[in-house]
């Protein structure tokens, strides 16, 4: 059983995940951000690997990625930072990056490092299903890694069923046809979509992301899914108020 499955055994509802960008706001902040998120009671943490050309991300995460890269972050430093928290941090970590980062680093070397850091779940938004089937499934199986796929209001049922069978973690339910970024509220159309997915009775847990920003949107998402991910709104807060205020951001959401 992987770390996310173990988490789901203990807790099935109202799971809060936070996305943050490694090496942001300062290069050395990665470990402290993780420690603060754990202390605040976040259920699992999405660790973002800064990328020069993040196609699925909106301006907030783009900016934080660019800043982190300017700070000098790279994959070797990220893995070093994650190794240092491995023994103290008990909150499951999920690694999110873009396929080219893994490709260039070396697919096997990348997977080995991920496993060494105690991480077993990946989110690669530009890894398409056909490439997963033809190549990456075998690679990830070899290292005991699981991949999280994204679904959207436009994803066909047949594809959702396949995705359900491919993951050992959760399905990332993209709240709307959108790139990441806080939108403020959840529409009736989105709720109809959440209900449709919920009624499919999938074996995988459902985590909603993109456009979740505060207590209200989190609570609404949790009515239809097992939990939700907050990214851009957290990054914005982190950029403005710093690590010391992480708790002030998280507490009202999980209260």
């Amino acid at each position: 059983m992987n770390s996310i499955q173990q988490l789901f055994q203990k807790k099935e509802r109202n799971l809060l995940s936070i996305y943050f960008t490694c090496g942001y706001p300062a290069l050395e902040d990665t470990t402290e951000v993780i420690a603060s998120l754990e202390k605040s009671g976040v259920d699992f943490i999405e660790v973002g690997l800064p990328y020069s050309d993040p196609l699925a991300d909106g301006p907030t995460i783009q900016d934080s990625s660019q800043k982190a890269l300017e700070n000098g972050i790279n994959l070797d430093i990220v893995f070093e930072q994650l190794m240092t928290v491995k023994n103290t941090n008990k909150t499951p970590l999920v690694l999110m990056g873009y396929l080219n980062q893994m490709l260039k680093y070396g697919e096997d070397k990348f997977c080995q490092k991920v496993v060494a850091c105690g991480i077993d779940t990946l989110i690669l938004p530009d890894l398409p299903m056909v490439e997963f089937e033809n190549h990456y499934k075998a690679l990830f199986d070899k290292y005991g890694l699981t991949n999280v796929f994204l679904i959207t209001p436009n994803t066909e049922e047949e594809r959702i069923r396949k995705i359900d069978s491919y993951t050992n973690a959760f399905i990332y339910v993209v709240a709307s046809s959108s790139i990441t970024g806080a939108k403020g509220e959840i529409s009736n159309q989105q709720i109809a979509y959440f209900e449709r997915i919920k009624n499919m009775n999938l074996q995988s847990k459902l985590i909603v992301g993109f456009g979740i920003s505060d207590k209200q949107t989190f609570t609404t998402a949790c009515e239809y899914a097992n939990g939700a991910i907050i990214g851009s709104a957290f990054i914005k807060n982190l950029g403005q108020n710093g690590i010391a205020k992480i708790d002030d951001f998280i507490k009202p959401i999980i209260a």
Partner: protein
Amino acid sequence: MKIKSKFHPDKNGYFGQFGGAFIPELLHPNVKELADNYIQIIESEEFQEEYKALLKDYVGRPTPLYLAKSLSEKYGAFIYLKREDLCHTGAHKVNNTIGQILIAKKLGKTKILAETGAGQHGVATATVCALMGLDCTVFMGEKDIVRQAPNVARMKMLGATIVPATSGSKTLKDATNEAIRYWIQNPETFYLIGSVVGPAPHPDMVARLQAIISEEMKWQLKEKTGKENPDTIIACVGGGSNAAGAFYHYLDDEDVELIAVEAAGLGVNSGESAATSQLGEVGIIHGSKTILMQDEYGQIVEPYSISAGLDYPGVGPLHAYLYESKRAKFMNATDKEALTAAYELTKIEGIIPALETAHALAVLPKMDLKKDQVVVINLSGRGDKDLETFIKHLDH
């Protein structure tokens, strides 16, 4: 029966190891819709009739194949110029936009999205949108908006909405990123991509629509030289659409030498270059596995060229395959060499080429040409848009 060319993509959009569709799930329905329909549409009689009629009466095709006598004399070979610069809107780009706008209409799309570097594709897209009465949004790097001001004005006059790309290097790469992000958020739009790049089937679709260039070259050469095949074809490569069109019908004729010319900027190893094949490695950019300029951690490196149309860190997957398989020879030209070649063509042939095109001309002095060698240079665009740059360098 025609044997399938090894230079056509497989069912997943791969040319050898290059290509594919590395896109977020959000774009899967869009790309699938296009992949399921584009060949059928392009090969239909109805499409071919409309496409060919517009190319003839609206674009002004066939474009001439001109034997450049002074240039031939100077370099000691038979040098023909395929005059894509005479196309309506001033470059080969319109061949593709005419084709894609017809495909968009067949698919019932009313909103068109494009990226542009030098502005030639943006103008060609805004033009066909005006022609068809469709809504047009063009992403253009903030830096390119400044250096290609005349094209920005043309697009505005044609009714397009221009959105500046302010991320990264603020050039073509970032305009393409922003266009793809907009496409994700507005999946009802048709992404009218400007080159043989992007997720499958875009590279193949654009190559098929630019193939008219080499289709005409075949019969024009036959008329002029008695043979369909030249010895050599030279074209500049940024993403690679004019080169793909000029090479297309000769890909399987291995006796035809294909030369792709990349922009070396201040020099291949100067750190200010866009010579992707020389500086790049296998990776993923804009939804396609290809050769791209990147650092040791896979971060995409910002390229440099004086020419906004060649200032791109990748190359289309077909070209990556032509490079790897050695079917095409990759050469490059610096900013300075391109400028010199542009002045030369202007002076001895009375043709002001686009800065992009000037790179193709710039390899002539580096080649070991034979007396009876038939060379076709794809004169992909005219230089009106580059006058400011040309004027600035006039005295140097």
